[in-house]
């Protein structure tokens, strides 16, 4: 089970993306648990995360999250702005999957 967590400001815009990503996951036949959380809640969900993706509007948190979570073996990266803006679930899911080692 691949566990992907998306984080943005309030967890609202990323939750739109989650739905699209889940649909894409079904199409690809991939078992993935995808979650969207607000920045403030991230610490409660980080234990159940393999890949953490940041909304581009909070990309200034990338270094902070990398420093905090990469030592725990979690891959941290930023969602591509255009894929995010177009809410392209398939592209973002494929990118997330490519980050799994």
């Amino acid at each position: 089970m691949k566990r992907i967590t998306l984080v943005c400001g309030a967890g609202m815009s990323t939750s739109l993306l989650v739905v699209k990503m889940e649909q894409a996951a079904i199409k690809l036949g991939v078992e993935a648990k995808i979650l969207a959380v607000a920045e403030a809640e991230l610490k409660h969900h980080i234990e159940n995360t393999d890949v953490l993706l940041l909304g581009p509007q909070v990309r200034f948190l990338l270094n902070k999250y990398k420093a905090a979570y990469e030592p725990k073996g979690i891959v941290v990266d930023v969602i591509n702005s255009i894929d995010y803006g177009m809410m392209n679930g398939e592209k973002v899911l494929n990118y997330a999957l490519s980050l799994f080692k």
Partner: protein
Amino acid sequence: MAYEIIIINKTGGIRMKKIIEFLEKYFVPFAGKVGAQRHLVAIRDGFVAIMPLILVGSLAVLFNNLPIPGWANLMKSIFGDQWNSFGGTLWNGTFAVMSLLVVFTASYNLAKSYEKDGLSAGVVSFASLLMLYAGSAKDWAIPFAFLGAQGLFVSLFVALVSTEIFVKLMNNKKLVIKMPDGVPPAVSRSFAALLPSLITLVIFGALKIVLTDIGIPDVHNYIFTIIQKPLLGLASSLGAALLVVFLLHLLWFFGLHGANILLPITTALFLPLMSANVDAFAAGKPAPNIITSSFFDTFVYMGGAGSTICLLAAIFIVGRREENKAKAKLGLAPSLFNINEPVLFGMPLVLNPIYVIPFILTPLVLTLTSYAAIAAHIVPKTIALVHWTMPPIISGFLATGSVMGIALQLVNLAIGIIIYIPFVIVSEKYAKDSEINTSKTLNM
């Protein structure tokens, strides 16, 4: 950023590019650091955690005072004379005590950011804060006056300082009492926190004595008078509002979450102004402040930052490119709830030199028109807090308790559409022209 900056024409485009490059080099990393700054983040998360409670309290006050003729009589006839004590009770536990709530939540989040025990840190901060209140010896009371928004500055100060002391002490191995392995984690955690808690509390107890000795028995009143009141006076001005709106949109232009980065400051400034209005409304007195938290969410950020509901409407009215209309449709549903990242990153508006003018101008203009409408007593002041995702029209009524709130939103919508329309046309023309040029080049 893997974006191509669209060049409008040679000279205008190059100047714009230089400004953007300069800002990207200096402003963006700075803003990023501010947005990630540990203490500001803790304050912001602290406020976010108590938002549900504050919203409930605000709605309770609105419920008690709905300016619908006959409402009070209707309620009395169903629930009796004390019908509004229910709302009052809800307010007492939430809005009225936000300083007590936020000292814990901010402290908890700050400690957690250091990977330390948030619960212990929060409890210690709470106790430290209570020590500083000038209690009434008469009936062992803590002054309600400073439990709410009026006490926010002291609360935030205590939360940050107390937690910093606590965390530094927790880092000192010699001060952490270790329990043998068999002891339950909750017990060993509280023993580990014992000495750091003790020392932190002693420090604040001593602080209270020092303050009383130097003639400040009521530090809350002191801070409120010397710092909070003047600062809030500045914050409630039109100039401050315009500055905040400008900065917020400048951040968004670079794809940074403007609202989030500025939240610690905007909440600390505008929530007390909101609170003063709520209190006045509850007491049947005229509300003092035009600028409040819900002023912006209701009349300026309609559809999200950039007042983008106006852009979407403009696209539906004059837009002819299928691509634009599809993007507008994609962004419409979340925009109704003021969530507009699909629009910001999808159009895109971020780093878009054609749309930058209406994107920053529209909210500034709407701030002016809304301020003017309220100052001229055409529209009532905002007297209730509404969540930023409350759709326009509904928010207009809820924030002001009046249909004039809705009317102002509709007027603002019209103004915003008028501002955006020419830029939609220019943007589409430019897109069409570059398509023609590309196909000409390809056909060569």
